[in-house]
């Protein structure tokens, strides 16, 4: 299948990252954008760009018809979905492929299967991979509560057609479950047009590991080692590293082998991620499969030296995988922090606004996948991801130190962000010891911080700013609240000039 001109059906940081690879291998790129994204970084980096509608994603980035039209207009013969938006929507894949356009991702049939979390669980079981005990049958609420009691709490309630952690809820008692059911169903209908839910036994503070896999049209499947994405808030990862710290080589091999077996069982073509949960005793359970490029792919690229977007393009072109399993190295350690416009002190509430100041980190073995620039106005309509900073080191300590240093350099003004929070995370004892689990951010331990030694300097700057503002205000001519010179002022001028 041809990939000679690529349309990127996404925005922000991931669209920029895909375009960089395309530029490297001489594939022209087409950006699409919504009204509020006209000046966005991804539009400025693309060779051509096409406006596709109003700001809300449902009217622009999720409109398959407009994407196909944009392909026709520009002559693009392939679409890269990035992550989020249409990336795992089988209906979109069918429509795009019917239009004769290459889709950089797995087939619609694979997406159909993996989108249904119950089918995915059954598939994993069929290749001998353990899954968490759960309730998969569609039951009415009362029967579900009965079954839940037999299974025992705590439980996770999840939408059957869910992804990206949306709608998931942890319930600890029958009362919790009773309250959670309508909410999870409501959110599932809202996001996925389907109200089926299933229950899964919840592990207390599990680790979250994902294995990167890649498959080609010839049926070859390889893994590119695992990532640890345990540091999560709202069931979404914000910090990931590879390889997972403190994992025995045997467990690593087992997980990677299971991931390859699952991908082979569905005839996976493209790159994807098989996700596992790990309990305290070293038991692992299949969770789900993510059929797209992931936000954490940079750490895998660091430790293997590969460019996963380039792999995606070559796989879509029908070429065999560039490397065999034996040729894929594992070098050192890499870590990535997702810089979001959000406030860790206020329950990670997203922030929006204009970027008033931006100093990006630089340095040795450091990568900054950014989608913003100084002066860019952040829209509240999209995910508040600003940049992904990743570093590589010979070992975990070096990678973490390098990241800490990069974050000290990173200055971002105008929007609330989590740069300072990540610095505290990298100083957190449990994190440094590699004692990772999904509950690491449950208690806001980072809030208890002392006032630093440079308070007087900072306050002096603020005080000076206030003084200058006051002086500016004093110099401004007196105006009435409507913003026009008051008639009284005019009268006195007229009187003075004898008009």
């Amino acid at each position, binding site marked *: 299948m041809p990939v000679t001109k690529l349309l990127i059906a996404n925005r922000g940081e991931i669209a920029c990252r895909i375009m960089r690879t395309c530029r490297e291998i001489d594939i022209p790129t087409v950006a699409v954008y919504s009204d509020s994204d006209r000046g966005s970084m991804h539009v400025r980096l693309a060779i051509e760009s096409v406006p596709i509608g109003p700001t809300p994603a449902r009217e622009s980035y999720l409109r398959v018809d407009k994407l196909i039209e944009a392909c026709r207009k520009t002559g693009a013969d392939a679409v890269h979905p990035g992550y989020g938006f249409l990336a795992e929507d089988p209906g979109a894949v069918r429509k795009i492929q019917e239009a004769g356009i290459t889709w950089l991702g797995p087939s619609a049939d694979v997406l159909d299967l993996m989108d249904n979390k119950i089918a995915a669980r059954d598939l994993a079981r069929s290749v001998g991979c353990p899954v968490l005990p759960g309730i998969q049958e569609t039951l009415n609420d009362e029967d579900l509560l009965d079954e839940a009691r037999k299974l025992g709490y705590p439980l996770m309630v999840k939408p059957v057609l869910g992804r990206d952690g949306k709608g998931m809820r942890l319930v600890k008692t029958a009362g919790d479950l009773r309250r959670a059911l309508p909410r999870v169903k409501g959110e599932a209908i809202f996001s996925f047009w389907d109200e089926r839910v299933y229950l899964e036994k919840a592990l207390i503070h599990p680790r979250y590991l994902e294995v990167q896999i890649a498959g080609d049209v010839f049926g070859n499947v390889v893994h590119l080692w695992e990532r640890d994405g345990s540091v999560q808030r709202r069931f979404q990862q914000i910090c990931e590293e590879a390889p997972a710290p403190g994992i025995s080589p045997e467990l690593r091999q087992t997980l990677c082998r299971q991931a390859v077996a699952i991908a082979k069982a569905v005839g996976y073509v493209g790159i994807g991620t098989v996700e596992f949960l790990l309990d305290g005793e070293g038991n692992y359970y299949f969770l789900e499969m993510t059929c797209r490029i992931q936000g954490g792919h940079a750490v895998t690229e660091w430790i293997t030296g590969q460019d996963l977007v380039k792999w995606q393009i070559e796989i879509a072109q029908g070429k065999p995988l560039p490397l065999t399993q034996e040729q894929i190295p594992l070098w050192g350690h890499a870590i990535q922090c997702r810089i979001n416009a959000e406030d860790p002190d206020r329950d990670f509430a*997203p922030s929006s606004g204009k970027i008033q100041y931006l100093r990006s980190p630089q340095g040795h073995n450091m990568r900054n996948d950014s989608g913003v620039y100084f002066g860019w106005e952040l829209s*509240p309509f999209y995910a508040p991801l600003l940049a992904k900073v990743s570093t590589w080191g010979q070992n975990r300590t070096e990678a973490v130190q390098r990241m800490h240093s990069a974050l000290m350099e990173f200055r971002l003004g105008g929007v609330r962000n989590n740069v300072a929070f990540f610095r505290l995370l990298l100083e957190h004892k449990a994190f440094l010891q590699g004692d990772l689990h999904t509950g690491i951010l449950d208690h806001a331990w980072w809030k208890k*911080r002392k006032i630093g030694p*440079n*308070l007087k300097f*900072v306050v002096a700057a603020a005080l000076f700013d*206030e*003084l200058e503002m006051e002086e500016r205000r004093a110099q401004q001519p007196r105006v009435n609240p409507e913003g026009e010179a008051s008639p009284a002022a005019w009268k006195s001028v007229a009187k003075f000039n004898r008009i």
Partner: protein
Amino acid sequence: MKRTLVIADETHELEIRRRRGITVMTWDGEEIPLDICKVERASYSIILNDLSVGVNLDRIRNPDPDLHGFRGTTYDGVYEFTLQDPRKILLAEAMARSKRSECSLIRALMPGKVLKLLVAPGEAVEEGQPLLILEAMKMQNEYTAPTAARVAQVHVEEGVNLEIHAPMITLEALEADGTPKP
């Protein structure tokens, strides 16, 4: 110009003056000469006692317009604090007294769309009962009643888009026996 600084649980009385080209800061009565220079937008170099530190300064929105919120970043971390004109503190205290009256107004904390309205005017609500769901930043945010109360007024409809701080619901406090306060 006087300001009251509040950071974490500390409070300091400050003053800044320009005298014959020299800027002086007074920190709880102690006079400190300041050498300060704006290096670029939102970025300052400050010399105190012959030691220079770079500060990135950001004004942050505060729901109370008299509290000027700041976030300053230096090499060692972030400082978040507020400066307030001490003259306005007296005023603010008076305002707070009047606010502590029987009505409370639920405002939108983020701009967004009202997805679902769960209460009607006149309805009694329990503490923590969901009032409405506001969709903002791709998330559904549930607003709950801070105390047991009666819904006095609903200012929004389902499906409307709201600005930040837009009033949504007015609650009326209840007496212990469940009747509205006179």
